[in-house]
């Protein structure tokens, strides 16, 4: 794959432009000279075998891991130089692989904390639980099938419900770029179905990056698929094209 010469003007069309991204841990390059672009409203699925660097890519975009070299541009903002919370405020939301929610708080409070208002110290002290907040929380709760559990402490939710709650916590922020790390992993069949349904509604009107192993699910939603292998892009394109790529078959089935 040849990297085209990119200028700033060309960047404009992309929501996210990742270029020459490399990160090394003690010499081991977990992500190696990676470049890819995500369009507005595009749904991109990243697949690849274990240890291919999928989660690391998400970590790099959301600022959890600092890149060794390379650039990540989100709507012309250089994310590699920004702090995590700044990246979030710029409009990037991220769901972790294991449900990451606040177990000591109720579902309502979980969502309320994620509500994008009162994010400074003073703001948090003076934050009022007014009607718009309550309405919005109610709306999201209904969307994620938890309207009846609002007063429940989050630790008592089932695994699937926890995943939904985390998705809800992202939705309430209304991010322009949503990143989901294995959203259906560990779910029962019925939960999985409900989740797919949920994802279909929430991915509208925003760009989404999903890491997923479930090929049926991928086929279902992906506009474009990127296959990672040993920190590099092995193949990229529509699902059908990727599936036919001999290199991909080699990696997945070759051993």
């Amino acid at each position, binding site marked *: 794959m040849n990297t085209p010469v990119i200028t700033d003007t060309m960047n404009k069309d992309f929501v996210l432009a990742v270029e020459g991204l490399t990160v090394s841990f003690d010499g081991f390059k977990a992500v190696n000279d990676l470049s890819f672009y995500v369009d507005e409203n595009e749904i991109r699925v990243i697949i690849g075998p274990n240890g291919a660097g999928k989660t690391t890519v998400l970590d790099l975009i*959301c600022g*959890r891991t*600092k890149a060794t070299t390379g650039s990540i541009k989100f709507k012309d903002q250089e994310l590699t130089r920004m*702090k*995590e*919370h700044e990246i*979030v*405020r710029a409009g990037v*939301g*991220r769901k*972790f692989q294991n449900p*990451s*929610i*606040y*177990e*000591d*708080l*109720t579902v*309502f*409070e*979980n969502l*309320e*904390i*994620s509500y*994008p208002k*009162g*994010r*400074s*110290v003073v703001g*948090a*002290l*003076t*934050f009022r*639980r007014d009607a718009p907040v*309550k309405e919005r929380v109610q709306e999201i709760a209904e969307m994620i099938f938890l309207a009846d559990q*609002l*007063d*429940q*402490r989050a630790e008592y939710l089932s695994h699937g419900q926890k995943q939904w709650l*985390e998705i809800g*916590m992202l939705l309430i*922020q209304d991010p322009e770029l949503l990143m989901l790390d294995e959203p259906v992993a560990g779910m029962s069949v019925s939960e999985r179905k409900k989740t797919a349904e949920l994802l279909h509604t929430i991915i509208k009107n925003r760009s989404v990056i999903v890491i997923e192993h479930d090929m049926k699910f991928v086929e279902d939603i992906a506009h474009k698929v990127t296959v990672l292998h040993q920190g590099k892009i092995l193949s990229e394109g529509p699902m059908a094209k990727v599936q036919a790529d001999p290199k991909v078959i080699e990696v997945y089935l070759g051993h």
Partner: protein
Amino acid sequence: MTKTGRTFFLRPQDMIGIAILAILLLVVLPLTLDNFRLQFVGKYLTYAFVALGLVLCWGYAGILSLGQGVFFGLGGYCMAMFLKLEASSVENTKIQTTPGIPDFMDWNQITQLPWFWEPFHHLGFTIIAVLVVPAIFAFVVGFAMFKRRVGGVYFAIITQALAAILTILIVGQQGYTGGINGITDLRTLNGWDIRTDSAKTILYFVCVGLLLASILLAYFVKSSKLGRILVAMRDKEDRVRFSGYDVSNFKVFVFCLAASLSAIGGAMFTLQVGFMSPSFVGIVPSIEMVIYTAVGGRLSILGAIYGTLLVNWAKTSFSESFPELWLFGLGGLFIAVVLTFPNGIAGLYQTYVAPRLGPLFGGAAKRSDATPPAPPSSGHAPAAAE
């Protein structure tokens, strides 16, 4: 309850709890204890300010500081400097080589009041300094460390080292600080003799008043969204960060708040006890203050007050009757609290007493409001957090 939201930041059972404490401190103890014992309680209550700060800082935000004595001391020293200057009027000190400066400066050949003592001639400045100086210090320390995501054990050790450094500094710079003897022989506050029994009784009530105000403040912080963010941070710091919050700012805030609260305690200590010395700044008092919080329940605002009173009462009565056993008692308390009742008295209350009282308060103590059963497992090494 949560769904409807609260119009006021206190829940009914909180109000009852505060009222009971207020009655105990303002009515029951003054009526039942003689002056002498009441002044003991007054002194203990100054430590309760520190314990209260630790509930917010350690219990809620998961930041264990082993250097709260630093802030207690800074507050106490600010107040002591004011009182010492008042006690060192030119007439009182006319036998000195340089009259009008504190006696220990005169002994150390200092002939002019150091510049940083000058503003402590004014009570207004002193009161502001009591609150602000420790907060600034906490801000500098907290900002440097939390921005770089130092936490847990590392933060504890570093604050402990700070306590050691400050002690060495105060002891070493005796010309400016009074050295190991501290600042002693404090007499009047704006002309009002603070050594008399009546003054001490008034100071006791002032102390209780300030403590109750601080408790209300703590409840306000706890019940605000900031309080919930602190709990959230202790649980899943990354998630809070990825919800768009600058986590370090919140930690710095709560650390500074705890510092200011401790400093109020220190200032009240100086007023009630009549002196301040480096022995309240060091490592040992700082860790002892943590145990007050732990015994009371690290997540319970009122528990911290009871914990402080209880441990100190035990200390006084133990060391009067069985001096050799006291260290066993204190050491055992540390271990027992950690091993068997990590949420302290408040935890025991929630588990055994509250369910039975529940019907009385119309089921106010709901499970969702109760103290979480497991102790927070905060304190990860920053090596992993980079």
